[in-house]
């Protein structure tokens, strides 16, 4: 076997000069532990020394290195991460070096809560100067997995705590161009619109967002993300939904093209329940008989169409229907 330069030979802690003064503490699982893991001797030893360090609450450089060794073997050990933070604070550790440390772990552990939490803690300590690095880092993770939940959460935290709002919409537009069905991106867009100091909230952004969203719906009418975003724009004022001509139009247009578009029908039902009264023209486009139909009857027909066209959710549509008043025609 060739030995790479990169390959480090593991030296047991008991053979290392610097640890000669420490007595390792074995794990106390009790007499007949259940769910026992067949640890390697390396893992067992590292943990034994870690226990000793915690017992004497030693916050030193060698303690820091030891936590690094534990983390490499089990990045999910939240106790070790917690202790590592205590050590870093006590010895005023080099935070740039710490950044390198977790950067190296990031790709293989993109879904580990502890690493992301540690990163957040670190970024908070380092302050606004690391804003770009954090945005770049999450962008890299997202280029591998555009829906990584932790990455998006971290990105939201960075924007709020450290800034960087200006370029975010552009970043999101690019991601949507690659995959308009990426719901995490739509969620992030909503986050930006409602929180960015540069935008002024939902009310200010509504018109441009409406256009953006309706274009996306027309491009991919089966994209639930876009339809939910459309409803989301009226989250704080649901009654305004029925007063928006663009909303009505996109819904009716879609149904005119596809009578059984489930998302459009879902939306239409919402509109009717909130007071939308289709004109005779609307009804014609919707392929509903326009004469003498009360809104309750119209809503009932929408539910019945959905019971058949979206029969997985038949129980839900039947329930929605059951709440409609029986109309007196």
């Amino acid at each position, binding site marked *: 076997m060739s030995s790479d330069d990169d390959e480090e030979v593991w030296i047991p802690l008991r053979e290392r000069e610097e640890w000669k003064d420490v007595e390792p503490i074995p794990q106390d699982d009790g*007499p007949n532990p*259940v*769910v026992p893991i067949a640890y390697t001797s390396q893992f067992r030893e590292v943990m034994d020394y870690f226990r000793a360090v915690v017992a004497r609450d030693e916050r030193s450089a060698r303690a820091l290195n030891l936590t690094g060794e534990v983390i490499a073997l089990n990045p999910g050990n939240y106790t070790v991460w917690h202790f590592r933070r205590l050590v870093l604070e006590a010895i005023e550790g080099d935070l740039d070096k710490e950044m390198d440390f977790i950067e190296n772990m990031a790709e293989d552990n993109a879904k580990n809560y502890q690493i992301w939490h540690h990163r957040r803690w670190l970024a908070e300590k380092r302050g606004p100067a690391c804003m770009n690095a954090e945005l770049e880092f999450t962008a890299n993770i997202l280029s591998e997995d555009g829906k990584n939940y932790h990455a998006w959460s971290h990105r939201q935290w960075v924007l709020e705590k450290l800034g960087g709002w200006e370029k975010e919409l552009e970043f999101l537009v690019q991601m949507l161009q690659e995959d308009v069905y990426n719901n995490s991106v739509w969620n992030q867009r909503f986050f930006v619109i409602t929180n960015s100091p540069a935008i002024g909230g939902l009310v200010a952004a509504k018109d441009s967002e409406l256009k953006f969203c309706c274009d996306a719906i027309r491009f991919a009418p089966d994209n639930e993300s876009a339809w939910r975003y459309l*409803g989301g724009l009226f989250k704080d004022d649901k009654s305004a939904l029925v007063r928006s001509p663009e909303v009505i139009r996109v819904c009716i247009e879609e149904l005119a093209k596809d009578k059984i578009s489930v998302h459009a029908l879902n939306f239409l039902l919402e509109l009717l329940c909130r007071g939308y009264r289709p004109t005779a023209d609307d009804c014609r486009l919707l392929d509903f008989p326009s004469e003498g139909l009360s809104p309750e009857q119209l809503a009932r027909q929408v539910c019945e169409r959905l019971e058949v066209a979206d029969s*997985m959710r038949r129980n839900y549509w039947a329930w929605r229907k059951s709440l409609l008043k029986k109309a007196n025609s």
Partner: protein
Amino acid sequence: MSATTREQKALEAKVSDVFRSFASAGYRNRAFLSELWREEHLDYLLKGMTRLPASFTVLDSSRPWLCYWIVHSMALLDRQLDPALQTDTIEFLKHCKDPLGGYGGGPGQIAHLATTYAAVGTLVSIGGAQALSSIDREKILEFLLRMKDPSSGGFRLHDGGEMDVRGCYTAISVAYLLNILVPPLLEKLGEYVASCQTYEGGIGGEPGAEAHGGYTYCGLAALIMADQVDSLDLPGLLNWAAFRQGKVEGGFQGRTNKLVDGCYSFWQGGVFPLLQQVVTKLISQQTSGSSIMHEEIEDDSDTEIGGIMPADIETFTAEKLFPVRKARNQQHRPFHNPTALQGYILLCCQVLNGGLIDKPGKSKDYYHTCYCLSGLSTAQHCLSTNPEDHPPSSHVFGPYSNLLDSTHPLLNFHMKRYMEAVDYFVSKA
């Protein structure tokens, strides 16, 4: 085609294949194919209790979880650990206690809300005085209070740890069970969870985060136990949750436009019985302010979909193969399609030599075994009007022997063991 649609189509093709084999099989084979392989799963579960290979080192901070996933799954399969193993488990969990209260991921690890939930859940599932008396209610309360963040209303998962909706659920559910749901724990809880409900209707992990099945279950359950569920937009939540069930697969996705996963059988599937529990508030919110709705349910006779026999259809989807059952009236209808969910779990999520999975092609693990079984149990029992009765065979997909013991909808602990535990804690308080 985008990455999302490509992956979705690929999964649909795999699942349709499985369903096609099922549909074209004769009656006898269909019974075999839809059977829950109880003994195989029990073998897999029991093995985990007594020996785990080195690859499990990454779960060395989740050992109470391993206990819960295994013991709870066994309980649903109506199997108890033998007395020696029960004692060993109780003894082991004692060694996971943090002197300051709560349970950590292993001996010597600081307390964590999730592992505290798991440890308590394990002890409840084992049941009996030995297990229950080992739970230190006072110390646990101290721990819960320390994790509470009064300014936001949320809970940190551990000292200096992250804060998210899981914290609310694990803290509140333990307090609820142990009857220590004191006012400081409940302060601003409704506000915090409501701030995590997104424009989509589901709940995210933190304010602003994407609506997600796991956090939705956690947030809704926590608020029901805290009696603060009015803080949520319940109709929005229901609409979002209903759309998470795949029309081809029958299983649930965790987020919009993502793939279904067996574990969401419980997280998402479990949301519907909870909404049923607060149906009065749900109806009130759904109908409020609408001139065309009212709170009285108008029952229609079920419109006949038409008998769909496998021979008639070209694509084999859960929607067509496992339609919702007709129900006499609205009160007896769940909001989702539990038949299709059971079909997905049994036909697509079982591994031949034991264990359950995320989706075809994935490997088994104890987490998915636990939540697929929990989701299966919930789906089998959710149509039952009386929790004491056994559901009729029409509610159980596959042979009636598939019927699992019922699980508590808010806690996901074995129902009978839970009731015994409540009696125990009442007698002690």
